[in-house]
Protein backbone atom coordinates (compact mmCIF):
# COMPACT_ATOMS: atom_id res chain seq x y z
CA UNK A 1 0.00 0.00 0.00
CA UNK A 2 1.53 3.34 -1.01
CA UNK A 3 2.05 5.98 1.68
CA UNK A 4 -0.62 8.27 0.24
CA UNK A 5 -3.23 5.57 0.79
CA UNK A 6 -1.94 4.81 4.26
CA UNK A 7 -2.39 8.45 5.24
CA UNK A 8 -5.99 8.29 4.12
CA UNK A 9 -6.64 5.65 6.75
CA UNK A 10 -6.88 8.25 9.50
CA UNK A 11 -10.11 9.45 7.90
CA UNK A 12 -11.70 6.02 8.20
CA UNK A 13 -14.37 5.90 10.88
CA UNK A 14 -13.27 3.85 13.83
CA UNK A 15 -9.58 3.96 12.88
CA UNK A 16 -7.48 4.82 15.90
CA UNK A 17 -3.81 4.66 16.80
CA UNK A 18 -4.42 5.74 20.35
CA UNK A 19 -2.88 3.56 23.02
CA UNK A 20 -5.62 4.46 25.42
CA UNK A 21 -9.26 4.98 24.54
CA UNK A 22 -11.57 6.98 26.79
CA UNK A 23 -15.25 7.83 26.55
CA UNK A 24 -14.51 10.95 24.56
CA UNK A 25 -11.21 10.51 22.80
CA UNK A 26 -9.23 8.03 20.79
CA UNK A 27 -12.27 6.43 19.20
CA UNK A 28 -11.42 7.25 15.63
CA UNK A 29 -14.28 9.62 15.04
CA UNK A 30 -12.73 13.09 14.69
CA UNK A 31 -10.99 12.90 11.33
CA UNK A 32 -13.97 11.16 9.76
CA UNK A 33 -16.10 14.13 10.80
CA UNK A 34 -13.51 16.52 9.38
CA UNK A 35 -13.47 14.82 6.01
CA UNK A 36 -17.25 14.52 5.86
CA UNK A 37 -17.77 18.21 6.61
CA UNK A 38 -15.24 19.24 4.00
CA UNK A 39 -16.84 16.92 1.46
CA UNK A 40 -20.24 18.41 2.26
CA UNK A 41 -18.88 21.79 1.24
CA UNK A 42 -17.65 20.33 -2.03
CA UNK A 43 -14.00 20.38 -0.99
CA UNK A 44 -11.32 17.84 -0.22
CA UNK A 45 -8.44 17.32 2.16
CA UNK A 46 -4.96 16.02 1.33
CA UNK A 47 -2.23 14.83 3.61
CA UNK A 48 1.49 14.48 3.14
CA UNK A 49 3.71 13.32 5.90
CA UNK A 50 7.38 12.60 6.38
CA UNK A 51 8.44 10.56 9.36
CA UNK A 52 10.22 12.69 11.92
CA UNK A 53 9.63 15.94 10.05
CA UNK A 54 5.94 16.60 10.30
CA UNK A 55 2.74 16.42 8.34
CA UNK A 56 0.92 18.92 6.22
CA UNK A 57 -2.82 18.97 5.69
CA UNK A 58 -4.13 20.76 2.62
CA UNK A 59 -7.81 21.66 2.68
CA UNK A 60 -9.26 22.72 -0.65
CA UNK A 61 -12.64 24.40 -0.69
CA UNK A 62 -14.51 25.76 -3.69
CA UNK A 63 -14.14 29.51 -4.06
CA UNK A 64 -17.85 29.97 -4.23
CA UNK A 65 -20.61 27.99 -2.66
CA UNK A 66 -23.04 29.98 -4.69
CA UNK A 67 -23.59 27.43 -7.44
CA UNK A 68 -25.58 24.31 -6.87
CA UNK A 69 -26.54 21.35 -9.01
CA UNK A 70 -30.26 21.07 -8.81
CA UNK A 71 -33.27 19.37 -10.25
CA UNK A 72 -36.16 21.65 -11.06
CA UNK A 73 -39.54 20.19 -10.27
CA UNK A 74 -43.04 21.48 -10.86
CA UNK A 75 -45.61 21.46 -8.10
CA UNK A 76 -48.91 22.94 -9.14
CA UNK A 77 -48.05 26.20 -10.86
CA UNK A 78 -44.77 26.67 -9.03
CA UNK A 79 -41.24 25.53 -9.72
CA UNK A 80 -38.87 24.40 -6.99
CA UNK A 81 -35.22 23.37 -7.03
CA UNK A 82 -34.16 20.20 -5.26
CA UNK A 83 -30.39 20.01 -4.67
CA UNK A 84 -29.11 17.05 -6.68
CA UNK A 85 -26.84 15.89 -3.88
CA UNK A 86 -29.84 14.77 -1.84
CA UNK A 87 -31.65 12.89 -4.60
CA UNK A 88 -31.35 9.13 -4.62
CA UNK A 89 -33.79 8.33 -7.40
CA UNK A 90 -37.11 9.27 -8.86
CA UNK A 91 -39.92 6.90 -9.59
CA UNK A 92 -43.55 6.67 -10.46
CA UNK A 93 -45.29 4.65 -7.75
CA UNK A 94 -47.84 1.94 -8.42
CA UNK A 95 -51.03 2.56 -6.53
CA UNK A 96 -50.61 -0.65 -4.54
CA UNK A 97 -47.28 0.67 -3.22
CA UNK A 98 -48.95 3.67 -1.60
CA UNK A 99 -50.25 2.97 1.86
CA UNK A 100 -51.93 5.06 4.50
CA UNK A 101 -50.86 4.81 8.09
CA UNK A 102 -53.68 5.92 10.32
CA UNK A 103 -52.96 9.33 11.78
CA UNK A 104 -49.43 9.30 10.37
CA UNK A 105 -49.98 10.19 6.76
CA UNK A 106 -48.87 8.08 3.85
CA UNK A 107 -45.95 5.80 3.15
CA UNK A 108 -44.64 4.39 -0.07
CA UNK A 109 -43.25 0.91 -0.46
CA UNK A 110 -39.97 0.91 -2.36
CA UNK A 111 -38.05 -2.36 -2.64
CA UNK A 112 -38.88 -3.53 0.85
CA UNK A 113 -38.58 -0.12 2.53
CA UNK A 114 -41.49 1.95 3.71
CA UNK A 115 -40.68 5.64 3.26
CA UNK A 116 -42.80 8.54 4.45
CA UNK A 117 -44.52 10.32 1.59
CA UNK A 118 -44.29 14.10 1.64
CA UNK A 119 -46.66 15.69 -0.87
CA UNK A 120 -45.03 19.06 -1.55
CA UNK A 121 -48.30 20.52 -2.84
CA UNK A 122 -50.11 19.90 0.42
CA UNK A 123 -47.11 20.97 2.45
CA UNK A 124 -46.91 24.31 0.66
CA UNK A 125 -50.63 24.91 0.26
CA UNK A 126 -50.60 24.52 -3.52
CA UNK A 127 -52.98 22.70 -5.80
CA UNK A 128 -51.39 19.47 -7.00
CA UNK A 129 -52.03 18.59 -10.63
CA UNK A 130 -51.80 14.87 -10.09
CA UNK A 131 -52.85 12.33 -7.54
CA UNK A 132 -49.92 10.45 -5.93
CA UNK A 133 -50.06 7.54 -8.36
CA UNK A 134 -49.89 9.89 -11.36
CA UNK A 135 -47.26 12.15 -9.85
CA UNK A 136 -43.57 11.50 -9.50
CA UNK A 137 -41.77 10.64 -6.31
CA UNK A 138 -38.30 11.93 -5.63
CA UNK A 139 -36.52 9.83 -3.06
CA UNK A 140 -34.24 12.09 -1.08
CA UNK A 141 -31.88 11.32 1.73
CA UNK A 142 -30.49 13.53 4.43
CA UNK A 143 -28.33 11.95 7.06
CA UNK A 144 -29.71 8.44 7.41
CA UNK A 145 -33.33 9.47 6.83
CA UNK A 146 -35.09 8.92 3.54
CA UNK A 147 -38.26 10.61 2.42
CA UNK A 148 -40.30 10.45 -0.79
CA UNK A 149 -41.22 13.91 -2.06
CA UNK A 150 -44.26 13.93 -4.27
CA UNK A 151 -44.05 16.38 -7.18
CA UNK A 152 -46.06 16.84 -10.36
CA UNK A 153 -43.28 16.86 -12.89
CA UNK A 154 -39.52 16.74 -13.26
CA UNK A 155 -38.47 19.66 -15.43
CA UNK A 156 -34.75 19.26 -15.75
CA UNK A 157 -31.34 19.48 -14.27
CA UNK A 158 -29.67 22.85 -13.83
CA UNK A 159 -26.77 24.54 -12.23
CA UNK A 160 -28.36 27.34 -10.29
CA UNK A 161 -26.91 30.38 -8.59
CA UNK A 162 -27.99 30.54 -4.97
CA UNK A 163 -29.51 33.86 -3.97
CA UNK A 164 -30.26 34.75 -0.42
CA UNK A 165 -33.88 34.98 0.56
CA UNK A 166 -32.93 36.42 3.91
CA UNK A 167 -31.18 39.47 2.51
CA UNK A 168 -34.48 41.27 2.06
CA UNK A 169 -36.80 38.79 3.66
CA UNK A 170 -36.80 36.26 6.45
CA UNK A 171 -36.04 32.60 6.69
CA UNK A 172 -38.78 30.37 5.32
CA UNK A 173 -39.17 26.90 6.76
CA UNK A 174 -38.24 24.20 4.26
CA UNK A 175 -36.52 26.65 1.92
CA UNK A 176 -32.80 27.30 1.90
CA UNK A 177 -32.68 30.04 -0.70
CA UNK A 178 -33.86 31.14 -4.08
CA UNK A 179 -32.55 31.31 -7.59
CA UNK A 180 -33.39 33.10 -10.80
CA UNK A 181 -34.41 30.79 -13.63
CA UNK A 182 -33.63 31.27 -17.28
CA UNK A 183 -36.93 33.04 -17.91
CA UNK A 184 -36.26 35.55 -15.12
CA UNK A 185 -38.65 34.02 -12.66
CA UNK A 186 -37.65 33.18 -9.14
CA UNK A 187 -37.63 29.58 -7.95
CA UNK A 188 -37.21 28.55 -4.33
CA UNK A 189 -34.51 26.05 -3.41
CA UNK A 190 -35.80 23.40 -1.04
CA UNK A 191 -33.97 22.71 2.19
CA UNK A 192 -34.12 18.93 2.06
CA UNK A 193 -32.41 18.44 5.42
CA UNK A 194 -35.06 20.64 7.03
CA UNK A 195 -37.91 18.93 5.17
CA UNK A 196 -36.71 15.48 6.14
CA UNK A 197 -36.37 16.41 9.79
CA UNK A 198 -39.72 18.16 9.96
CA UNK A 199 -41.51 15.45 7.99
CA UNK A 200 -41.36 13.44 11.17
CA UNK A 201 -42.69 16.33 13.20
CA UNK A 202 -45.51 16.96 10.75
CA UNK A 203 -44.61 20.24 9.04
CA UNK A 204 -48.00 20.43 7.40
CA UNK A 205 -49.72 20.54 10.73
CA UNK A 206 -47.39 23.24 12.00
CA UNK A 207 -48.44 25.87 9.50
CA UNK A 208 -51.86 27.31 9.89
CA UNK A 209 -51.72 30.33 7.62
CA UNK A 210 -51.73 29.44 3.97
CA UNK A 211 -51.57 31.38 0.77
CA UNK A 212 -54.67 30.63 -1.30
CA UNK A 213 -53.36 29.19 -4.55
Amino acid at each position, binding site marked *: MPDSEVWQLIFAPGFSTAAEVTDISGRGVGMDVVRRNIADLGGRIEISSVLGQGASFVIRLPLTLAILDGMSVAVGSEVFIVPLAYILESLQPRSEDLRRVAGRGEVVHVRGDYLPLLPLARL*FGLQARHSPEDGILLLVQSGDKKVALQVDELLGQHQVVIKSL*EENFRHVAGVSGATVMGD*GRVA*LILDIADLVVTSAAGLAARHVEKE*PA
Partner: protein
Amino acid sequence: MNADIREFLGFSLGSEEYAVDILKVQEIRGYDAVTHVVNAPAFIKGVINLRGTIVPIVDLRIKFELGDPVYDQFTVVIVLSLAGGRVVGMVVDAVSEVVALAPNDIRAMPQMGSVVSAEYLTGLASLGERMIILLDIERLMSSPEMGLVETLAE
Protein backbone atom coordinates in the same frame (compact mmCIF):
# COMPACT_ATOMS: atom_id res chain seq x y z
CA MET B 1 -37.98 77.34 0.08
CA ASN B 2 -38.51 76.21 3.63
CA ALA B 3 -35.99 73.63 4.77
CA ASP B 4 -38.60 71.85 6.86
CA ILE B 5 -40.67 70.93 3.85
CA ARG B 6 -40.53 67.21 3.17
CA GLU B 7 -41.66 65.45 0.06
CA PHE B 8 -43.92 62.44 0.07
CA LEU B 9 -44.98 60.00 -2.64
CA GLY B 10 -48.73 59.72 -2.70
CA PHE B 11 -50.53 56.53 -3.71
CA SER B 12 -53.99 55.13 -3.48
CA LEU B 13 -55.25 51.97 -1.86
CA GLY B 14 -58.89 51.44 -2.68
CA SER B 15 -60.54 54.81 -2.10
CA GLU B 16 -57.97 55.96 0.43
CA GLU B 17 -54.89 58.03 -0.23
CA TYR B 18 -51.61 57.35 1.49
CA ALA B 19 -48.16 58.82 1.28
CA VAL B 20 -44.67 57.71 2.26
CA ASP B 21 -41.42 59.61 2.60
CA ILE B 22 -40.08 59.86 -0.91
CA LEU B 23 -36.51 59.29 0.24
CA LYS B 24 -37.48 55.72 1.07
CA VAL B 25 -38.66 55.06 -2.48
CA GLN B 26 -36.15 53.41 -4.76
CA GLU B 27 -38.25 52.94 -7.86
CA ILE B 28 -41.73 52.35 -9.17
CA ARG B 29 -42.49 49.47 -11.47
CA GLY B 30 -45.40 47.50 -12.84
CA TYR B 31 -46.72 44.41 -11.17
CA ASP B 32 -45.06 41.31 -12.58
CA ALA B 33 -45.50 37.64 -11.98
CA VAL B 34 -44.31 36.80 -8.50
CA THR B 35 -43.10 33.51 -7.12
CA HIS B 36 -45.20 32.47 -4.17
CA VAL B 37 -43.40 31.94 -0.94
CA VAL B 38 -44.56 28.83 0.79
CA ASN B 39 -46.65 29.18 3.91
CA ALA B 40 -46.59 32.97 3.87
CA PRO B 41 -49.60 35.06 4.91
CA ALA B 42 -51.88 36.22 2.10
CA PHE B 43 -50.56 39.78 1.98
CA ILE B 44 -47.07 38.54 1.15
CA LYS B 45 -47.53 37.96 -2.56
CA GLY B 46 -44.15 36.35 -2.97
CA VAL B 47 -40.75 37.31 -4.25
CA ILE B 48 -39.52 38.77 -7.52
CA ASN B 49 -36.20 38.99 -9.24
CA LEU B 50 -35.21 42.64 -9.25
CA ARG B 51 -32.07 42.75 -11.35
CA GLY B 52 -30.64 39.73 -9.63
CA THR B 53 -31.73 40.35 -6.06
CA ILE B 54 -34.66 38.57 -4.52
CA VAL B 55 -37.19 41.09 -3.28
CA PRO B 56 -40.34 40.28 -1.31
CA ILE B 57 -43.60 41.82 -2.47
CA VAL B 58 -46.35 42.73 -0.04
CA ASP B 59 -49.82 43.82 -1.04
CA LEU B 60 -50.84 46.66 1.23
CA ARG B 61 -54.42 46.39 -0.01
CA ILE B 62 -54.67 42.94 1.52
CA LYS B 63 -52.80 43.96 4.65
CA PHE B 64 -55.02 47.01 5.17
CA GLU B 65 -58.14 45.03 4.21
CA LEU B 66 -59.12 47.47 1.50
CA GLY B 67 -61.49 45.52 -0.71
CA ASP B 68 -60.64 42.90 -3.28
CA PRO B 69 -57.23 43.46 -4.77
CA VAL B 70 -57.21 43.51 -8.55
CA TYR B 71 -54.10 43.12 -10.66
CA ASP B 72 -54.26 44.98 -13.94
CA GLN B 73 -52.04 47.19 -16.05
CA PHE B 74 -52.42 50.07 -13.58
CA THR B 75 -51.33 48.03 -10.58
CA VAL B 76 -48.02 49.40 -9.39
CA VAL B 77 -45.25 48.19 -7.15
CA ILE B 78 -43.39 50.80 -5.13
CA VAL B 79 -39.94 49.48 -4.40
CA LEU B 80 -38.71 50.76 -1.06
CA SER B 81 -35.15 51.01 0.10
CA LEU B 82 -35.19 50.62 3.86
CA ALA B 83 -32.63 50.86 6.63
CA GLY B 84 -29.84 48.33 6.42
CA GLY B 85 -30.13 48.18 2.64
CA ARG B 86 -33.25 46.03 2.73
CA VAL B 87 -35.39 46.26 -0.37
CA VAL B 88 -39.11 45.55 -0.23
CA GLY B 89 -41.80 46.03 -2.84
CA MET B 90 -45.35 47.01 -2.03
CA VAL B 91 -48.34 46.66 -4.31
CA VAL B 92 -50.67 49.67 -4.48
CA ASP B 93 -53.59 50.57 -6.72
CA ALA B 94 -51.95 53.62 -8.27
CA VAL B 95 -49.26 56.17 -7.63
CA SER B 96 -50.73 59.67 -7.65
CA GLU B 97 -48.18 62.42 -7.16
CA VAL B 98 -45.35 63.82 -5.13
CA VAL B 99 -46.60 66.15 -2.45
CA ALA B 100 -44.49 68.62 -0.51
CA LEU B 101 -45.65 69.10 3.05
CA ALA B 102 -44.47 71.49 5.74
CA PRO B 103 -44.69 70.33 9.36
CA ASN B 104 -47.77 72.47 10.02
CA ASP B 105 -49.60 70.82 7.09
CA ILE B 106 -49.52 67.57 8.98
CA ARG B 107 -52.15 66.89 11.63
CA ALA B 108 -51.66 64.34 14.36
CA MET B 109 -53.42 61.04 13.96
CA PRO B 110 -56.62 60.93 16.01
CA GLN B 111 -56.91 58.04 18.43
CA MET B 112 -58.92 55.27 16.87
CA GLY B 113 -58.95 51.60 16.21
CA SER B 114 -57.64 50.52 12.83
CA VAL B 115 -56.48 47.37 11.09
CA VAL B 116 -52.89 48.49 11.24
CA SER B 117 -51.58 49.57 14.56
CA ALA B 118 -51.78 53.38 14.76
CA GLU B 119 -48.09 53.69 15.51
CA TYR B 120 -47.33 53.22 11.80
CA LEU B 121 -49.58 56.11 10.83
CA THR B 122 -47.68 59.31 11.48
CA GLY B 123 -50.35 61.84 10.63
CA LEU B 124 -52.97 63.22 8.30
CA ALA B 125 -52.44 65.90 5.70
CA SER B 126 -55.16 67.73 3.83
CA LEU B 127 -54.60 68.74 0.26
CA GLY B 128 -57.56 70.78 -0.88
CA GLU B 129 -60.53 68.48 -0.41
CA ARG B 130 -58.43 65.37 -0.10
CA MET B 131 -57.05 63.72 2.98
CA ILE B 132 -53.74 61.94 2.80
CA ILE B 133 -52.65 59.41 5.40
CA LEU B 134 -48.94 59.50 6.11
CA LEU B 135 -47.32 56.13 6.73
CA ASP B 136 -44.13 55.43 8.64
CA ILE B 137 -43.18 52.82 6.09
CA GLU B 138 -39.85 52.02 7.70
CA ARG B 139 -41.52 50.99 10.95
CA LEU B 140 -44.39 49.23 9.24
CA MET B 141 -42.14 47.09 7.06
CA SER B 142 -39.88 46.19 9.99
CA SER B 143 -42.74 45.41 12.34
CA PRO B 144 -43.36 41.86 13.54
CA GLU B 145 -46.94 41.95 12.25
CA MET B 146 -45.69 42.23 8.66
CA GLY B 147 -43.52 39.17 9.22
CA LEU B 148 -40.93 40.42 6.73
CA VAL B 149 -38.02 40.29 9.09
CA GLU B 150 -36.86 37.68 11.50
CA THR B 151 -38.15 38.52 14.95
CA LEU B 152 -36.73 37.28 18.18
CA ALA B 153 -39.99 35.63 19.12
CA GLU B 154 -39.71 33.16 16.26
